[in-house]
């Protein structure tokens, strides 16, 4: 079952602009991860933020986490055409379904298009 829900579903911006994607989730988590998927490729891990962290940076990426609102945001600054991809948030709930191991629950993703 989907734990995360990304917003917006699709985003189109020009190179140099910032892109912000949001993720809401339903149950308590220990951490939240963001992944990128280029068209026709597998997912690539971008960043992980723990439940006791509020903000984390990695290069042009900034992730925030608000556990009281059960939401996270991913900001890509100074976007480039190469950032065109789908972005997914993923969580492992603290209380996991019995049949899930430690598999990630993914949202449906935000499709980002960066035009030159």
């Amino acid at each position, binding site marked *: 079952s989907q734990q995360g829900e990304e917003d917006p579903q699709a985003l189109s911006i020009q190179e140099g602009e910032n892109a912000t994607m949001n993720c809401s989730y339903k149950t308590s988590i220990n951490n939240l991860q963001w992944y990128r998927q280029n068209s026709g490729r597998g997912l690539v891990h971008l960043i992980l933020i723990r439940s006791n962290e509020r903000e984390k940076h990695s290069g042009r990426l900034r992730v925030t986490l608000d556990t009281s609102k059960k939401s996270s945001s991913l900001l890509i600054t100074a976007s480039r055409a190469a950032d065109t991809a789908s972005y997914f948030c993923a969580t492992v709930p603290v209380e996991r379904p019995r049949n899930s*191991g430690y598999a990630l629950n993914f949202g449906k993703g935000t499709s980002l298009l960066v035009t030159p």
Partner: protein
Amino acid sequence: IAGITQAPTSQILAAGRRMTLRCTQDMRHNAMYWYRQDLGLGLRLIHYSNTAGTTGKGEVPDGYSVSRANTDDFPLTLASAVPSQTSVYFCASSPQPGQGMEQFFGPGTRLTVL
């Protein structure tokens, strides 16, 4: 190059046929996963394995089986394919099963069942 490989890259299969999707990793990761990705539904877990010799069912296991005879390989078998199994299948691994583990994904297998 270390990572996960999947084979085949794509396959068109007649309904009722048996098919095995292969997944191999050379990172000595203990945990492995099979997801399917469908438009509008995101990624859903089919089966998982926390360590060699053990497997578990995920969210959508019906019609699929897995085995984990060793650390490196985690094949997914469709015993009798049906059109609803048309999807893109991703294998993933993580160093250990557990919270906060980054997962590494293979390139995917695009399967069409006619």
